[in-house]
């Protein structure tokens, strides 16, 4: 068919091809304006459509950014409110615990001060000063000795009396001083008590001051969140991403724990539900083991919900305390029962492994040897079977964090994807526009010969026209519209 068409004009392929080429060029030249219009309109249409798409994506992106902002701010606000509330509760506790006893403490301090004052007053009472006995004794001793024995005796008596009186007075003075020292010594515990009480007050006040500083900082953050500041928004986004990563990591660890738990109970489960039945492509015993683990996780979620540690189910959180307590007891009981079942299954697994080992020894023709200290791994497996369900129960905490942070992370990821999509759409639009222009030029390149002729004619004609105008003042041969088209 192609060959027939090729040789339509002549038996020589080259000549025939040349005729075809000329025909094609003529046809293309004649259809030039329509082809240009087609390329341009198509390019503009695609460009316009892509711009519209881009605008729509931009609007969607803006809405999503606004939604992310709202979600993030709402989460941050809730978190800040909870933190501030918690700190106020702590302050309240400090006030209630320490400062409620302040009147008592004040009374103690006042008593101590009063007692110290009284002691001080008592200690400050001056003891009777020893009179100037020494001077009298010295004066009496210095009296010139008399030859009269009676006088001498009298003087001796006087001296003795004076000396006795001096000794007595000194003794009294010493006693009084000792008493003052004793009183001063009794003041020491009062001082200590006073110091301790003041120390307690200082500690409490310092704690309050620290707490008030924390509250101040949190209030500033809260105010920034409420004002919707970019700084607060960035901090919340970063915090959310960190939370997402940490929660994801903990969930991964929990998943590994669940996997170990699964392997611990899957084999003995075949003793209960049989090892040959299948649901779909999975063994029924494996599904049963999986269901037990999932129920444990569900019970853990309910337990932590009823303890108000997590807030995944608002209906549980809003229950009255009595109902919530019942739910807590129920979920804890079921969890404990399941942990007990898992421990027994783990023990059964150990028994089955022992039996299998003994069978292999029998099949090999060897005497069955009982391994020593076999009870250690048995107890270990049982403990593992009992503990793992409780450990898995705590998965609710990272799960909640993961779900909450997932909203933000998903929002950020979707915004990123929309940005990329917008860029791609704009690129496609620009490319379509550019390609349409390229096609116009390419089209012209194919009909370059007739275009050159046309160009030559159009250049020659104005000169001829001018010449003819000057001669005969005739109208131009080319219509104005055609001239415009050629120029375009």
């Amino acid at each position, binding site marked *: 068919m192609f060959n027939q068409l090729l040789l339509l004009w002549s038996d020589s392929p080259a000549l025939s091809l040349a005729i075809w080429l000329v025909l094609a060029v003529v046809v293309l030249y004649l259809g030039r304006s329509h082809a240009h219009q087609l390329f341009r309109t198509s390019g503009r249409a695609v460009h316009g459509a892509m711009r519209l798409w881009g605008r729509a994506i931009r609007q969607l992106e803006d809405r999503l950014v606004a939604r992310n902002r709202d979600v993030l701010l709402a989460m941050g606000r809730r978190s800040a409110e909870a933190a501030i509330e918690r700190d106020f509760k702590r302050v309240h506790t400090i006030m209630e615990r320490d400062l409620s006893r302040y009147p008592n403490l004040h009374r103690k301090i006042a008593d101590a001060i009063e007692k110290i004052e009284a002691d001080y007053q008592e200690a400050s009472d001056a003891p009777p000063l020893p009179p100037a006995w020494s001077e009298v004794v010295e004066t009496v001793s210095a009296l010139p000795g008399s030859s009269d024995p009676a006088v001498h005796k009298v003087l001796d008596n006087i001296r003795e009396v004076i000396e006795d009186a001096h000794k007595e007075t000194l003794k009294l003075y010493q006693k009084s001083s000792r008493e003052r020292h004793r009183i001063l010594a009794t003041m020491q515990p009062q001082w200590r008590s006073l110091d301790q009480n003041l120390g307690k007050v200082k500690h409490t006040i310092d704690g309050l001051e620290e707490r008030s500083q924390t509250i101040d900082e949190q209030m500033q953050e809260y105010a920034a969140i409420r004002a919707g500041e970019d700084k607060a928004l960035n901090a919340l986004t970063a915090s959310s991403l960190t939370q997402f990563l940490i929660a994801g990591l903990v969930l991964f660890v929990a998943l590994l724990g669940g996997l170990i738990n699964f392997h611990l109970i899957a*084999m003995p489960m*075949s*003793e209960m539900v*049989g*090892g*040959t*039945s*299948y*649901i*779909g492509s999975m063994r*029924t015993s494996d599904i049963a083991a999986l269901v037990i683990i999932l129920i444990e996780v569900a019970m853990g979620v309910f337990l932590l919900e009823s303890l108000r540690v997590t807030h995944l189910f608002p209906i549980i959180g809003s229950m009255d305390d009595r109902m919530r307590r019942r739910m807590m007891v129920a979920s804890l009981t079921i969890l404990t029962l399941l942990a007990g079942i898992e421990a027994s299954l783990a023990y059964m697994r150990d*028994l*089955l492994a022992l*039996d*299998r080992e003994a*069978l*292999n020894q*029998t*099949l*090999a*023709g060897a005497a069955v040897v009982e391994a020593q200290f076999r009870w250690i791994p048995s107890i270990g497996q049982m403990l593992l079977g009992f503990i793992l369900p409780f450990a898995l129960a705590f998965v609710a905490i990272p799960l909640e964090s993961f779900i909450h942070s997932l909203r933000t992370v998903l929002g950020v990821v979707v915004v990123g994807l929309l940005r990329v999509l917008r860029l791609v759409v704009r690129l496609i639009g620009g490319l379509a526009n550019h390609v349409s222009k390229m096609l116009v030029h390419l089209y012209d390149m194919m009909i370059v010969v007739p275009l050159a002729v046309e160009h030559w004619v159009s250049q020659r004609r104005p000169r001829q026209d001018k010449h003819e105008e000057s001669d005969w003042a005739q109208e131009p041969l080319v219509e104005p519209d055609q001239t415009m088209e050629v120029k375009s």
Partner: protein
Amino acid sequence: MKRLLILGVLLVVVGCSDAGRPDQRAVYLLLDTSGTYTEELDKARGLMAYLLGALDSGDSMAVALIDGGSFTEKNIVAKVTFDDRPSVANGQKRAFKETMDQVLGNIDRGAAHTDITGGVIQGHDYLTETGAGQRYLFVFSDLEEDLKKGQIRDFPLDMSGVEVVALNVTKLRQDNIDPRDYAKRLSHWQSRVESGGGQWRVVNDMERLGDLIQWR
């Protein structure tokens, strides 16, 4: 509507629940008791220990003897389908081993003739009846058939879906004279099995039974 939904869910669950899975295994072991091959039967104990260790709950196993007329259920000396519960299955394995020890202990004289084809057909029937997904027929023999007069065994075998494994195929005296006889014997059985739709393997090293059957 609600009842219909519950019924639908139940139907899906029951429909998905499948008691007999295609990956269940069935093993039929043919032990040659003819002539001098009885001396090799001690090696069969190791093979049985391997099979009992490898098979699991839901799998089936049967052991039959090859003698002058093997196409009969009477030649099946022990058969078992292991229970769903692993502990019960272990008990069954112990009992099976004891039975086989007794059977092998009682074989003191070799059979006069060797009807391997009859045993293979009987084995195929047994394996088909089990409905297992993986079917193995182990032939513990030198593969030298010695039929009674009048026995007709030269017809095509139906071995579809069965993997036939020839074990411990010992060389005979005439193989030492012309080793091509041994190769001819093996290729003859291979062509019979493969033309019948089965798969064929030869394992002569009884110390290397690791991948004899597919593990679950």
